[in-house]
């Protein structure tokens, strides 16, 4: 029943480019969609395992740079007489490598830092993202530093004789982002509704009890970190091939903060939370652009955020869900939590 509702929502999103003729708004939706994917990845860690990763943008940037470099080709001088040269490859291959490499980075960060929790974990992750930014800024021979990587090729389809095209333009990119978003959503949904997701939730809720029934803490935290990082890398890769220019600013802390705002206001630990929060904080500032001055936009942005956090401390989705539950239970039907959105 709920699944049917979900596919209806997807069908609506598929129809958007058919009636939304203003390409600027489509651009806003694409960028918002990329941020929603990154927020969903953050939510997997923050909402389900309870670990706040303030370096999520590090994985986003690794995905973006890896994907861009593979599609542009690069030469890496390892020693004086040995260099690793990579020819330009199609963007989709860059995407795959971006996902794998950021997933691997997630594994490394997870292994190292899940020994420490709470505030220390937050500090390690912030440092990680900042180090990544400094690497991108200073490794000029590879990343061109502040000169940025330009002319990143867009995604292409290359099925000889059937369909060969370069997918730059708003509409194709919108569908690519939508497809990756839907896949990410399904991955997270299947994961958190399974035994593995229950193990993650158990660790967040009561770690001693979880371990006493045989749940291996490190294993599930690292699993969540790897999936989360890979997904953030996918978002970064989409960003690189859509915007087609990236500089070390993709590692800026403010992007992580934006993701956190989206997750917290929408409702951490819910599947729909990052989508709702992402739509509000991705689209609202742009809608205000026509009518208000920039300063006022940010005041409204901040005010909206404070209002949501103040009145709905658990986020929008849990509040709606609770209201729905209280209505249903008044009608005498119990709803198990495991069917929460």
């Amino acid at each position: 029943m709920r699944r049917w509702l979900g596919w209806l929502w997807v069908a609506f999103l598929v129809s958007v480019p058919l009636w939304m003729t203003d390409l600027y708004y489509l651009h806003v939706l694409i960028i918002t969609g990329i941020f929603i994917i990154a927020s969903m990845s953050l939510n997997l860690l923050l909402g389900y395992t309870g670990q706040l990763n303030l370096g999520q943008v590090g994985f986003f940037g690794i995905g973006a740079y890896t994907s861009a470099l593979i599609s542009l080709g690069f030469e890496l001088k390892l020693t004086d007489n040995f260099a690793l040269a990579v020819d330009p490859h199609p963007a989709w291959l860059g995407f795959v490598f971006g996902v794998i490499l950021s997933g691997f980075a997630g594994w490394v960060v997870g292994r190292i830092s899940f020994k420490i929790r709470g505030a220390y974990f937050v500090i390690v992750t912030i440092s990680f993202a900042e180090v990544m930014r400094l690497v991108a800024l200073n490794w000029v021979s590879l990343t061109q530093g502040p000169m940025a990587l330009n002319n990143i090729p867009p995604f292409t389809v290359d099925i000889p004789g059937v369909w060969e095209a370069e997918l730059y333009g708003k509409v194709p990119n919108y569908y690519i982002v939508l497809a990756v978003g839907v896949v990410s959503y399904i991955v997270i949904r299947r994961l958190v509704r399974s035994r593995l997701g229950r193990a993650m939730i158990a660790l967040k809720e009561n770690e001693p009890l979880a371990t006493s029934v045989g749940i291996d803490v490190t294993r599930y935290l690292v699993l969540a970190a790897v999936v989360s990082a890979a997904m953030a890398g996918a978002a970064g890769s989409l960003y690189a091939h859509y915007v087609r220019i990236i500089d070390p600013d993709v590692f800026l802390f403010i992007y992580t903060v934006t993701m956190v705002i989206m997750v917290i206001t929408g409702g951490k630990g819910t599947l729909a939370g990052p989508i709702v929060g992402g739509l509000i904080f991705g689209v609202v500032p742009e809608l205000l652009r026509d009518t208000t001055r920039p300063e006022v936009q940010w005041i409204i942005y901040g005010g909206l955020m404070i209002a949501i956090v103040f009145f709905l401390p658990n986020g929008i989705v849990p509040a709606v869900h609770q209201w729905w539950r209280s209505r249903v239970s008044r009608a005498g039907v119990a709803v198990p939590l495991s069917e929460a959105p």
Partner: protein
Amino acid sequence: MLPMETKLTPPETVLSLEHIAVRFGGLLAISDMTFSVREHEVVSLIGPNGAGKTTAFNVITGFVRPTEGRIVYRGRVLNGMKPHEVADLGLVRTFQKTSLFDRNTAFDNVLIGLHRRGKRKAWEILLALPRVAREEKMLSEEAERILDFVGLSRRAYELGGALPYGEQRLLEVAVALAARPEFLLLDEPVSGMNPTETRNFMKMLDKIREQGITILLVEHDMRMVMGVSDRVVVLNHGRIIAEGQPEEIQRNPEVIEAYLGQGATRAAD
């Protein structure tokens, strides 16, 4: 040829603590503790507050490393194992302070406890193979069965943290049972229960025992301890001061002194 009766071997020792000592900095929580539990036994660990009972539980289940000594379970040394590894061997504990997944339903609490029974890997789950759905169904049925066993079926969809205290303690046992223990460690399971609830709990303990589960119990309720235990181990100041059957323990002068004596001595001065 020997008649059959004399060939009955004494039940096998499943858990033994050998000269266990635990120090927290300068504090000696346990000094030189040695005792063992045999298959299918119910053994109670009693003693005044601060005697080291909960520390003993923490040492056995890997939450605290012993400073000295060895813990052996079915021939395997538990020293240095993590709590989840100990649980994998079939040793499952409950906690002195009520410990549940408060924000999950009673049903989900048990479902989390069933973690060890699930075998499906991450890739199978991501591909949503039919066997994943089959396993989920099996786990759900098992969770219902366990809730029914402890008598909480009608509370299945209430939040763990919202249950009355006595039922929270039952749910804790349900979560522990879900992990399919061969050896169950219960830390003051009936504290805070009223006499009726305690009596029902004792009946349930008998049923758990009938399933062949060995039980180590820490408890202050003496009626319960004397009622269910095969043997009692008495701790005081981190040392074992007596060990034996409930009747012997009740008559043991050292035990009586540990519980009552100091006050009586002081009063006589």
